[in-house]
């Protein structure tokens, strides 16, 4: 019962913020609404006892990605942002509705197949919080179901991103010198 109420509150927050995010014309407001959507999703993870995933969601998306978006918005010049808002177009409505329907069908299908709602409502589901020790060991293990390869791959990927950023920065600097 309590879980259902919390779920309803979170769902309202997520949906309202998401609609506000895409419908507002001011880009900073959109970024702030996005922040609340991400908080809501983190709340859902906490509701499902995935505390680690919820924390990672707050830390990475709310604390990292949103700040990056806001910085990017600040770095874009005012002229680029003017006249960027989209108008309601008759022709595109049909296509958009189709895509939205397909998305909704997929979500509903997954929802019903895994019985998420009944799982949320029922009180007798055991508390299955995965401890940090298990997560840490799985993340660094090379056995079956171990995640050391993706983990290392992501770190190499991030290194490549950093080097790429530095290269782009250096090209700019050289052009400025010339």
């Amino acid at each position, binding site marked *: 019962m309590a879980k259902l109420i919390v779920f309803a509150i979170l769902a309202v927050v997520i949906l309202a913020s998401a609609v506000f995010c895409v419908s507002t014309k*001011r880009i*900073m*407001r959109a970024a702030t609404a996005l922040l609340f959507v991400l908080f809501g999703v983190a709340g859902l993870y906490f509701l499902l006892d995935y505390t*680690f995933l919820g*924390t990672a969601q*707050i830390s990475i998306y709310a604390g990292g990605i949103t*700040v990056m978006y806001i910085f990017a918005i*600040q770095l874009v010049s005012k002229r680029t942002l003017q006249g960027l808002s989209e108008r309601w177009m008759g022709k595109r409505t049909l296509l958009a509705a189709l895509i939205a329907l397909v998305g909704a069908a997929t979500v509903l299908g997954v929802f019903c197949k895994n019985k998420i709602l009944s799982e949320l409502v029922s*009180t007798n589901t055991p508390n299955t919080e995965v*401890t940090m020790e298990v997560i840490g060991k799985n993340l660094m293990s090379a056995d079956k179901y171990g995640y050391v390869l993706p983990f290392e791959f992501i770190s190499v990927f991030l290194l490549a991103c950093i080097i790429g950023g530095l290269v782009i920065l250096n090209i700019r600097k050289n052009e400025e010198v010339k």
Partner: protein
Amino acid sequence: MFDFSIVTRWFDELLRGTLGLGDFGAILIECVIVGLAIIIGYAVLAIILIFMERKVCAYFQCRIGPVRVGWWGTLQVFADVLKMLIKEIFVVDKADKLLYYLAPFLVITASIGTFSFLPWNKGAAVLDFNVGIFLVTAISSIGVLGVFIAGWASNNKYSVLSAMRAAVQMISYELSLGICLISAVILTNTMQISGIVEAQTGPWQWLIFQGHIPATLGFLVFCIAGNAEANRGPFDLAEAESELTAGYHTEYSGMGFGFYYLAEYLNLFVISGLATTIFLGGWAPINIGIEGFDALMNYIPGIVWFLGKTFVVVFLLMWIRWTFPRLRVDQILKLEWKYLMPLSLVILVLMTVCVAFGWTFTIA
């Protein structure tokens, strides 16, 4: 050692057994009471800290501080709060009103969120997650957004400048803060806050003694980075009053400003409290291995130990604030990226080596 969970368990029994409430009702009532207790504790500590700051600052500058209102100026803060509460809140022209009103709430949410993680006594940790420390750093990062949005929504050049500075500074110093916390996690083998404190009970078991050199260095780096994270001390260039009037909260009046004021002082308390929890043993009393002495120390309740140690750290940070001149923005970034970050990485490696070879004073 007095265990506070006796009281909470008795209250839970009272609600469930005597009053016959179900799971839902009992937990709802408990949550409301705990929430109220946190907010009241927050307000009371803010008043104490503001008064302490004014007195400490005054004595460092060879003044005597507020003395007129109440005995030794003790009612000064209450008068200030009353003034702030009855002031009008007004918005700047052409500012984004929604974001302007929202920003103080983001800041205060981050502040109260991290505040409720502090362990007050044995069995009196309010939020005690398995991912405790990680969640604290995650929640504290919301404050950056609040500060930035406040500066941006004020429609004021100085505020935007200050917001940019604050965001850059807080994002940078979060790194060394996090790495110091990780080195403590390596030593205690847990991220849960009650577990971390539990690992520090016993003779010479505070982390700063357990982890000797790396832990001491970690404590120092944590205090410096925490001071910067709370926008205080020599790192207060975000609100540098001589250059930017008051920085990101220039355009706020009344309780809008009051929220920033509260959050600033409570962030100081939270940083000191976390430093106490993680390096100085939290509520764990000082034990030296002599039975009589230890038994005597254990009679002192945990909350006294916790508040005592925290206020010592608060005093240290205030001492630093009123002694050193403000750093420039390039100096702040250089200090973090060229000195503190590499140093904290070295601490991390050193701590790992110490733990791996068993060169710690841990009594398992």
